[in-house]
């Protein structure tokens, strides 16, 4: 079973230290959320794990250090869904997803590759746009296509860099539901950088909170989310309420300081999780 261990990872650009001594691990079938304010190093850490950036320290995938692995081998194991999706000029959705087969495929595209792309498109429900131009899609559709591309890579670890930031709530849920099911179904590991603390609490098994390039705290969302933590990391006052057994952060506007009544919410959200 795949296990990803990030040991003492640090990264700096000339004149700017970005990440310091990041250490955590993730097991198969787990989703780990990376949260933290803008500039805390979430995207940099994702890029380091995908070796787009070369960090110090070691990142072990089932015991092997990925920083010394050949690029193609790594691409068979780790798939990335970038924050802003682009594709090549005049590429169709099918061709964009087919790129995910590159680590496995030879020059000639095999029938197996075509089947896998068609299967991924069908499963994500975007088969009807297979021959559409990628650039003509909406943000949510593009995110789906990029997810399909990463699935076609058949990776053991899926990295998602703020996949829901530009999406409406329906597409946010759509993307995260799919990732959640894939992780459980294929026993993959997923690391997902998120800004939305509440979505993170609902979908991830554990969270790593970054602040200024270091791990501020890590653990389950229930343990992690406290009004004190939110204020210290984000500089925002907040109430933490419980929604369906998950912590839910309600940020408070400055004009509401002293006027907020937690009872306003508690009465309405104390429902049970459906069986």
């Amino acid at each position: 079973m795949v296990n990803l261990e990030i040991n003492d990872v640090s990264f700096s650009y000339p004149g700017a230290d970005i990440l310091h001594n990041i250490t955590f691990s993730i097991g198969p079938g787990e989703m780990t959320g990376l949260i933290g304010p803008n500039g805390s190093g979430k995207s940099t850490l994702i890029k380091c794990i995908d070796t787009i950036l070369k960090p110090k320290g070691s990142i072990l995938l089932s015991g092997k250090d990925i920083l010394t692995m050949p690029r193609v081998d790594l691409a068979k194991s780790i798939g990335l869904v970038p924050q802003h999706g682009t594709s090549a000029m005049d590429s169709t959705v099918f061709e964009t997803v087919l790129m995910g087969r590159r680590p496995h495929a030879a020059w000639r595209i095999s029938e197996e590759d075509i089947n896998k792309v068609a299967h991924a498109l069908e499963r994500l429900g975007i088969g009807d746009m297979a021959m559409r131009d990628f650039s003509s899609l909406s943000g949510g559709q593009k995110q789906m296509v990029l997810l399909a591309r990463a699935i076609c890579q058949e990776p053991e670890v899926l990295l998602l860099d703020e996949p829901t930031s530009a999406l409406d709530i329906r597409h946010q849920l759509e993307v995260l539901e799919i990732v959640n099911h894939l992780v459980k179904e294929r026993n993959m590991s997923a690391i997902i950088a998120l800004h939305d603390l509440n979505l993170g609490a609902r979908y991830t098994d554990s969270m790593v909170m970054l602040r200024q390039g270091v791990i501020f705290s890590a653990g389950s969302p229930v343990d992690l989310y406290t009004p004190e933590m939110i204020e210290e990391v984000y500089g925002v006052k907040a109430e933490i309420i419980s929604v369906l057994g998950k912590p839910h952060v309600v940020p408070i506007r400055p004009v509401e300081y002293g006027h907020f009544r937690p009872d306003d919410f508690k009465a309405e959200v104390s429902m049970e999780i459906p069986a």
Partner: protein
Amino acid sequence: MIKFKYSTIIHTLFQNSNIASQHISMNDHQGVSLRYCEVMSQHNPENSQSNASMSEIQSSYYRYHSRKVLFLLSVSFGILFLVGIAASFGSYELDLVSVYTTIFAGIFPGMGIPESVANTIIWDIRLPRISMAIVCGASLGVAGAILQGVLRNPLAEPFTLGISSAAAMGASLAIIGGLKLFGAYSVVLNAFISAFLATMVIYSIAKSKGMTPEAIILAGIAIMFLLDAVTSFMQYLGTAEQVQAVVFWMMGSVSVANWETVFIVFCIAVIAIPYLIYKASDLTIIGAGDETAHSLGINVEHVRMRTLIFAALLTASVTAFCGIIGFVGLVSPHITRMAIGGDNRYVIPGSALVGGILLLGADTVARTILAPMILPVGIMTALVGVPFFMFLFMRKRKELW
């Protein structure tokens, strides 16, 4: 009321989430859609969206693929047809049948077809020129496709990296500066060596900046201005005849064609184009972004450097013999992409064929429109090509970039 809505929304979300999990078997690989909205739509039919089945997706891909192959075949036949027409035009008029018969007899000498005047005209005069136009057009088309793909810039063309300026400077050194180390081939070799040296300088500068498209383009443009200044300085010093010779050379012409020169350009094309087609998939993925390409297992810097060197080699070989022939390298990849999309495995051979047919067409018009005067093909490529390109451009509905 507001509170009620809040709780209702949360309840609805989780209710549907639960339905979603009920409908998606964890071990089911047989085409169960994971799409959340589809599950939502079971409760709200207005939300429903169609989704093609796997076999429909496959067949639409195969149809699209067939269209690409059909395009390549059509342009290939177009070139064969145009070869016949081009060979029949000239001061000695020939009909199409005798043209093809003579070409056929030359390729298969054992067929017993008698030699005639047409044989000399076609094989010694017209076919070398026609072949040169096709090979040069193909080389420029491929170089354009590579530059646009690798630099992710639709305005890139074979001369973006200052290759034309370097070649013009090399030619000026021979024509005006008197630097004739290679005898009769001085103009050609000076142009080639200058073009290639300039390319190497650009690569060295860009490499120190990580071979990003921006670094390559900026280095190329800076070198281009520098070399243009040197050429202008030499023209300022040159005599009227020398300046005229340089200007004529810069207009571009395939009139130097003989089987020897065709062979040299052909050899470089035959080495470079298959290599570039071999790297086509990587080039397509690089078009999606360096980080994406890296993530998919591609050594972006290596692929970019090697493909650009081959593209520069193709451009330098054409420019050395024929001068600066603009437009073909810019529009051939665009025309190809408009017809068959952006997959470089087809765009590269397609650009070669379209480039070949464009340059052959332009040269045929250039040498017949004001016969017996033969115009430089560099003038005609834009005069013939722009209306054709605009026609395609206006017909295309979707946004290009």
